[in-house]
């Protein structure tokens, strides 16, 4: 098969997997593994890995597989490729028709419906960062594609999107930075029928948290490492079957692959203001002993920095999606809500707020997309990622707040989703890691 044909076949395979309408319509076909029940209040740490699988270690030397970057284009262009457009459309439909109706309940019970997460896996979102030889389905690594998909999922619901994308962060991290043994050990599971729950744990529970100055430490031991510390807001912490954890090694941040059935790995539910459907948890590492092969990315500071930067782009994409949801929701509301004998949208005080939501949202989206497109072009993107993050923290939160304000008292009660978006959007400007594009 000619190279071009092969590329075509691969991309068709991805599309087939992602855009297949029978997948979209299928609900709850999969038997979930026994699932730990989330406790909506804290009640102490317990051993992690209740539902864990065992990854059979494959030792392999030689070069790890890497997805190539998409070829660089010169002209300014905001049109997604046909393939990206189709993925965005089908995932967008899943987000609006499946995730959105489930969002309120998922938020109250602090858990995403397992069948929804299964369907999200069926859509192939954990395969985007996985090289072809480990079962991945795309021929190029594209942060833009991930960003578009993340935005589309965020428009459905930020909490469920976080739960669904959390394993993808781990598969992308291992795809990008894993050595050949790590890739062969873990990646096939992420492209199979039953994708493991997994989480990328960077955040720590303290004010002014800086992901480049970690309290969690890794100490070198003869046969590996010993990790100690507490990670916070770890998505699906209780039922995750694999973690990638950030810890300071020789006073510099590094990434480690942690299997939850390791002794000294404990979880405690950590319900938060928002993104509750992701069943966030504290992850406690109490002198957890890891093998030498656990170190991901050779403790390269640039790799760690990229991990943080890619996470910020992903959170910005989620925030853009949620802000779009706010705009979509308030427009019909203010047009239909009557006060003083006419729609409240006839008043400038209301209409201008809607105009500003639209304007700021457009700015956020473009800044986020530029950061992602620079990743794909092999350009530096740390600055752009942080600018996207700043906008989400300031303008994104403002949109969340104005979404509630426009509905007045109705915005404050749970009959409308805007109060949830208000809570979720506060998180998007704070969270480090957890997601990658």
């Amino acid at each position: 098969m000619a190279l071009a044909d092969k590329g075509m076949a691969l991309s068709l395979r991805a599309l087939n997997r992602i855009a297949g309408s029978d997948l979209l319509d299928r609900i709850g076909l999969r038997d979930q593994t026994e699932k730990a029940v989330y406790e909506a209040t804290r009640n102490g740490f317990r051993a992690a890995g209740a539902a864990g699988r065992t990854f059979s270690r494959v030792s392999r030397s030689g070069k790890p597989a890497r997805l190539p970057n998409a070829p660089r284009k010169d002209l300014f262009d905001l049109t997604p490729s046909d393939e990206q457009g189709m993925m965005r459309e089908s995932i967008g439909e899943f987000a609006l028709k499946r995730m959105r109706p489930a969002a309120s309940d998922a938020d109250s019970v602090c858990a995403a419906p397992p069948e929804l997460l299964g369907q999200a896996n069926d859509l192939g979102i954990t395969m985007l960062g996985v090289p072809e030889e480990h079962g991945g389905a795309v021929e190029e690594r594209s942060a833009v594609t991930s960003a578009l998909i993340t935005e589309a999922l965020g428009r459905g619901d930020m909490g469920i999107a976080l739960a669904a994308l959390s394993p993808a962060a781990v598969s992308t991290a291992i795809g990008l930075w894993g050595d050949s043994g790590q890739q062969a050990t873990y990646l096939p599971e992420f492209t199979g029928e039953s994708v493991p729950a997994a989480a990328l744990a960077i955040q720590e529970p303290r004010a002014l948290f800086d992901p480049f100055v970690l309290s969690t430490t890794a100490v070198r031991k003869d046969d590996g490492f010993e990790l100690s510390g507490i990670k916070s807001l770890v998505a699906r912490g209780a039922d995750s079957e694999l973690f990638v954890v950030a810890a300071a090694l020789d006073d510099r941040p590094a990434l480690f692959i942690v299997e939850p059935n390791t002794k000294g790995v404990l979880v405690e539910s950590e319900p938060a203001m928002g993104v509750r459907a992701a069943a966030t948890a504290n992850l406690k590492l109490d002198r957890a002993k890891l093998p030498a092969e656990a170190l991901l990315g050779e403790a390269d500071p640039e790799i760690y920095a990229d991990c943080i930067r890619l996470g910020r782009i992903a959170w910005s994409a989620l925030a853009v999606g949620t802000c779009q949801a706010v705009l979509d929701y308030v427009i019909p509301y203010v047009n239909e809500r009557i006060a003083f004998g006419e729609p409240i949208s006839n008043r400038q005080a209301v209409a201008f707020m809607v105009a500003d939501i639209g304007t700021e949202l457009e700015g956020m989206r473009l800044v986020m997309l530029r950061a992602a497109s620079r990743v794909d072009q092999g350009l530096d993107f740390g600055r752009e990622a942080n600018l996207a993050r700043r906008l989400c923290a300031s303008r994104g939160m403002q949109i969340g707040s104005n979404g509630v304000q426009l509905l007045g008292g109705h915005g404050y009660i749970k009959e409308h989703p805007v109060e949830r978006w208000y809570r979720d959007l506060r998180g998007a400007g704070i969270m480090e890691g957890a997601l990658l594009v």
Partner: protein
Amino acid sequence: MTINLETPKKFKVLSEQAHTVAQEVLRPISRHYDRAEHAYPKELDMLASLIDGMNESGSTLGAGASGVKSSASTETQNRNGSNMSSAIGVMETCWGDVGLVLSMPRQGLGNAAIAAVANEEQLLRYEGSWAAMAITEPESGSDSASIRTTAILDGDEYVLNGEKIYVTAGERAELVVVWATLDPKQGRAAIKSFVVERSNPGMILDRLEHKLGIRASDTAAFRLENCRVPKEDLLGTPEIDMKRSFAGVMKTFDNTRPLVAAMAVGVAQASLDRTRELLTEAGIEVDYDRPAHSQPAAAAALLELESDLEAARLMMMEAAWMADNSKPNSLHASMSKAKAGRVGVDISLRCVELCGSLGYDESELLEKWARDAKILDIFEGTQQIQQLIIARLLLKKTSADLR
């Protein structure tokens, strides 16, 4: 098709040339013409000839934007054309001095109106002229549909009567595009634009304004007293078409608003660049990887300002890109103008604050940029007019519903 938000390589030379012009020609005379309000910046004559040469390639460095027009191309291929190159050129030159850019011969806002609505014969006839734009009246500002200047056909000429204010480059330009109504009773559809020779004896210069900023740019007030204009100088069609006419005149703005956004981005970028240098001297450096909150307040402020500037710049690029690709861009043109207008003011004022007395006194240009920036949130549609336009489009409201 690949999503790419970098400035294309093909505009790199233009961008660098414009930046060099700003640095070497405009900056050195910037303070002088800010103080000497109403003095003619003669240095611009040579520069304008240079820019005329560049214009032949379809780009412009001036405010006037002869290069901006709706592309009639039906190609499906992605285009980065003259709307984008003009926006980039304007942004870079305004990094030098926005007041001087507004005074650039043959680059008036009237040139943009001519480019947008003139027919082929008119385009040829006015080519190479410097055209100002006269819309605002003492009793009609943002509400441009309510202008009172009348144009009555008398034989082969229209006779114009009324008063026009805030005419940028009105004293220096060779032509003035004047908005007037053929019949005040017929509302906005009857509003037409007329090209009036500056030497026309019926157009009498009343005064030049003294302003907060852009003092290098002359702002004229005129009286039109039985000002006779050949009927061939009516731009577009003389018919009063209830559906299309006013929309046609307003269409000019879809093309020029991204340029005003570009001006605001240029001024804000100038403020931010200089502030960064002064803060570096004061020991403050931004670390782009670390969270804003774990850095000094001044560094966090720079990050915040830079993020808004990045958004404004990309929105300007988007609006220009849409125009280049014949995508309807009224919404995005107004959004880019709204965002750039307000962050231009916020950023330049915040930079003055961050730099303290260096920002506030006349040893630096920071205080000037903060004064200049304010006009960019006012002319070509104020912030509030942009919000109205955006809101009407998003909410699908008529101007009767949302006033």
